[in-house]
Each structure stands twice: as structure tokens, then as C-alpha cells.
């Protein structure tokens, strides 16, 4: 879709800054004012942690930082040491359950969450106070109100609720404190059952889903011959998180649903969302990718070169480092997330606000990278190449060692309903087009084969499309 084509109207999300006096105040902050808020909150946070957390007191003392005498953010950024997953894991191993970073009394822990464990390096444990639980809700409500959700709206939450993850509890808290009527369908209903429920409701205003699951839901509707924009005329906002996507996919989703696609960046360490597209959507008005504007008065962000640890320039990719300014239980202070994002300075966002931003649709993981034939390959890059083809419903990939000890990469694609070319020649041409798109983005030729849609796994939250089986090939 070209920039000239008319995008869906943002509807109720047209100007959240006019609707909310508090948002208007935050939008009016100058950069020095915003940084003054950060400094005051940071000083307060560090003073509290110096008194309540051995983990952080040790770090403050080693850095010779007196929280009460902290006068600049730069002094903090230059002197306070970074923490990473390994530091948190060691802390909680030496001082179970929560480690010395907890920062509140054990009997004040009202919610326990853990990271997913997908890294294979253990699960971090976080203890949150009742006050933090409200902040968890607020840090979901904030991006959703910015995106158009209003009290009384009907919301469908496709992310599995409850359990031990932050993402399992935050949406419920956020929707409750907004005053929306929420259906938490994630993980409890099949895709077809969700569709049946939504058709019965009809006046759905808001959907929250992982990028992957919004794709699955849309595909499920189309497979049943249902046009989303006709079936759900009251839909105002589709809100996604957790995974990257190609611009072409976002354009198709907006067209199919007839409303704006919005995105947020969040994590356990952010205790919800750290930034969002506000009302603007994931597509830039001038074409290409939009921006997620960071909620820097609640969470301080640095975007650093992962090797030199120097701040990256506007427009460059770097690793997100977060500092909670308003969380008291298990706060993250200068925590390396491992998340890769393209940083955009507030001066370059064109929003008129003093909030820094990161690019939509390209958040990745530094530790997701696969080294294939000497090339650094991120699954997000292959997602972008594959899903740029509207005919593809989903795919799965694997890297393995062949019988003659060569590295091979197989991409199995499944066509969307009624999208498979009837002629062999057209089908071969299509496969070559997908191969070329992958090669262009990764510098690696991969084998592309067609499979049945049913043979591919379905994910209710974050997709795990890739398996690295190379070590299995070395077994004797």
C-alpha cells in the first residue's frame, strides 16, 4: 500500500492527549523537564534501594554513588554498573527465593512472576508489591488508552491469562482499571471458538494479541470466508506486542480489519509496556515503519551498542537497557534486556513530544541470532521475508546438519486458504520468489518446501518457528 492510499481512521484514538489531562501534561513536557522528572524519581528509587536492598546497596557503594547527592542522569549512567540475566540468576541462587534485589519485605510480595525460560539460562523470579500490581495495570492501561481503548469498551485479550508471567497478569489488571469489559480468551478457547464468541458479541472494540496470534486469528476468519471489517464494524484498535513483522503484513491487517494496528514494547523488566505507538499506528504517515514512543517518566531507557556499551546514535540498532523509576519490588536498575531495537531520538520522531522512541516491528533478541554459514541471521528477518508474501499462512524453519556434514536450512511454508497456485510452474515460481526474498534479507540461500497448514504448530502467544538441530547431526 502506498503512502497515498487512505489508512483506516484512528477513531476514538484520534487525540488521546485532548481526552486525558494527564496525557496532555506528559505530552507538553520539554526534554529538560522530562529528564528532571526522571532524575527526581531515580534519586528517590536509589535512596530507597540503598536502604532496602543489599544487591543494589553493594552496587551503589562500589560505584561511590550517593543517591541523595545525585545531580545528573549522566553520572548515574556512567557510574552505576549494568546488571544482566546472569547477575539476577546468581543473586536469587545465593539468596532464594527472590534474591537480595527484592527491595521490599517478603510479606509485601503480592504477585510473583517469572521470565519464560526460553533462553535456556534459567528463569528470573520477581516479587511485586500491591502498589506494583497497580503500576503493572497502569503500564498496560497507558498504551491502550493512547491507542483508543475507553471505559465501557469491549476488549478481547488473546494472550493466555494468569500463570507465572508478567504478560499473563498485566492485561487483566490493565483492562480492569480502565473499566473495559474484557473477555480473556487466550489459552482457553480454540481459534474457531474465539471467532464464534466474537461473532456473537459483534461490537468488539479492541483486540490484544501477540503478532503471531493476530495473524492466526485473521487467517482463521478468512478461512471461514469472514471479512473482519464487515464482521466487526465497531473494531477500533488491534494491539500487538512481542514479535516483529513486515510492513506489508501490517498494511494487509489494517485493510482487512478496517482499523489501525497499534504496537507496544513491553517486558517483565518493564513491568508491562515501556512504550507504544500512541494513536499513530505501526505505519508511518509517510510510508514505512512507525514508532513506539517510550514512557520515559516511568521507565528510563538506554539504547547501547552491545559490544562497546556506548549509546547508539538516532537511527541505529542497539540493546535496550531499562531502569524502573516507579517499581519497588524486584526493580530492574540498568538491566540489559537483550532486546534489540532501532533507537529514534525525540528530535527525530516528528511527534512534537520530548519522548524518545524505537522503531515498530523490528524488535528482536540479540540471543535469538543464528550463525549460519558465517552470517548472522535473525528469525525476525526471515519472518519479514516470508510474510511479505500474502499467499503464505505460516511457516516453520530448521537448521540441521546433513548426512555429509553440511549445514542445511529448511523452510516449510503453508499456503493460506485458496492461495496456492494451481499450476506447477506458478508454484515453482512462487517458491523461488520466497527463496530470493530470504536470501536478500539474510544473505543465505535456504530450501523452501510446501507443507499442509495442519502440519505446522499453532502458537497462542510468542511463536517459536525455528529449531536449531545442528548439534544433533554430530551425534555418533
Amino acid at each position: 500500500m502506498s503512502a497515498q492510499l487512505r489508512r483506516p481512521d484512528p477513531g476514538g484514538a484520534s487525540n488521546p492527549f485532548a481526552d486525558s489531562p494527564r496525557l496532555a501534561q506528559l505530552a507538553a513536557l520539554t526534554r529538560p523537564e522530562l529528564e528532571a522528572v526522571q532524575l527526581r524519581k531515580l534519586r528517590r528509587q536509589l535512596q530507597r534501594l540503598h536502604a532496602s536492598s543489599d544487591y543494589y546497596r553493594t552496587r551503589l557503594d562500589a560505584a561511590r554513588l550517593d543517591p541523595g547527592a545525585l545531580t545528573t542522569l549522566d553520572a548515574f549512567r556512567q557510574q552505576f554498573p549494568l546488571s544482566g540475566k546472569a547477575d539476577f540468576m546468581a543473586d536469587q541462587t545465593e539468596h532464594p527465593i527472590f534474591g537480595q534485589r527484592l527491595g521490599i519485605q517478603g510479606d509485601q510480595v503480592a504477585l510473583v512472576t517469572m521470565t519464560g525460560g526460553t533462553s535456556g539460562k534459567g528463569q528470573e523470579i520477581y516479587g511485586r508489591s500491591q502498589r506494583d500490581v497497580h503500576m503493572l495495570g497502569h503500564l498496560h492501561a497507558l498504551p491502550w488508552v493512547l491507542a483508543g481503548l475507553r471505559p465501557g469498551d469491549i476488549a478481547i485479550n488473546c494472550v493466555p491469562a494468569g500463570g507465572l508471567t508478567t504478560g499473563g497478569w498485566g492485561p487483566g489488571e490493565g483492562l480492569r482499571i480502565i473499566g473495559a469489559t474484557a473477555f480473556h480468551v487466550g489459552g482457553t478457547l480454540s481459534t474457531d471458538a474465539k471467532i464464534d464468541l466474537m461473532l456473537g458479541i459483534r461490537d468488539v472494540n479492541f483486540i490484544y494479541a501477540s503478532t503471531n496470534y493476530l495473524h492466526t486469528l485473521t487467517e482463521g476468519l478468512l478461512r471461514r470466508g469472514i471479512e473482519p471489517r464487515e464482521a466487526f464494524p465497531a473494531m477500533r484498535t488491534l494491539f500487538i506486542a512481542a514479535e516483529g513483522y513486515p510492513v506489508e503484513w501490517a498494511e494487509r491487517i489494517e485493510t482487512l480489519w478496517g482499523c489501525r494496528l497499534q504496537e507496544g514494547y513491553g517486558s517483565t523488566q518493564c513491568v508491562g509496556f515501556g512504550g507504544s505507538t500512541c494513536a499513530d499506528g505501526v505505519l508511518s504517515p509517510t510510508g514505512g515503519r512507525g514508532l513506539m514512543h517510550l514512557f520515559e517518566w516511568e521507565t528510563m531507557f538506554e539504547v547501547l551498542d552491545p559490544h562497546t556499551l556506548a549509546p547508539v546514535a538516532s537511527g541505529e540498532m542497539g540493546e535496550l537497557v531499562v531502569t524502573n523509576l516507579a517499581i519497588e519490588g524486584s526493580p530492574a536498575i540498568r538491566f540489559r534486556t537483550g532486546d534489540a531495537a532501532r533507537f529514534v531520538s525525540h528530535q527525530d520522531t516528528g511527534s512534537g513530544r520530548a519522548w524518545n522512541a524505537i522503531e515498530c516491528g523490528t524488535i528482536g533478541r540479540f540471543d535469538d541470532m543464528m550463525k549460519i554459514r558465517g552470517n548472522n541471521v535473525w528469525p525476525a528477518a526471515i519472518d519479514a521475508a516470508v510474510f511479505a508474501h500474502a499467499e503464505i499462512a505460516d511457516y516453520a524453519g530448521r537448521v540441521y546438519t546433513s548426512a555429509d556434514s553440511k549445514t542445511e536450512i529448511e523452510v516449510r511454508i503453508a499456503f493460506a486458504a485458496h492461495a496456492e497456485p494451481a499450476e506447477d510452474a506458478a508454484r515453482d515460481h512462487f517458491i523461488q520468489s520466497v527463496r530470493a526474498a530470504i536470501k536478500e534479507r539474510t544473505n543465505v540461500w535456504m530450501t523452501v518446501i510446501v507443507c499442509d497448514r495442519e502440519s505446522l504448530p499453532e502458537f497462542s502467544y510468542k511463536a517459536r518457528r525455528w529449531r536449531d538441530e545442528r548439534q544433533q547431526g554430530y551425534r555418533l
Partner: protein
Amino acid sequence: VGSVHNAAEKTAQDHQILGDMLVQADRLCRSRDPLLKGQFRHLRDRIAALLDLTAPLVSDETAPLASSETAP
């Protein structure tokens, strides 16, 4: 500019109300009723979070943190 100023005034009023409520909620938290004590605590800390969320943005010093530590 005027609307932002009005918004700041309104938020300051909300903040004042919440500060008064926190004092009252701290009193509730002295309860020894095992059924209600936790619920009072839940209410109290929701107020504490809202107090922080409505704190003045532009000032010489922010209000002290309304933490999970209840008043003695």
C-alpha cells in the same frame, strides 16, 4: 498552554485528595482482622500508586514515595 495549566491544576487537586485518602487508608491498615487486613492493604497500596501517578510533573521536588511501607 492554558489547557495544560488547567490539567495541572486538576491533577494537583486529585493528588491532594489521594494524599488525604492515604492517611485514612494507613489507619485502616492497623486492623488485626485477618479477613480485612489484606484487603485494606490492597486498597491502601492502590491509593499509593495513584498518588505517584498524579504527582506534579514540574516542581522543585516530587512528593516523597508513597511506598508499601505503611505509616506507623
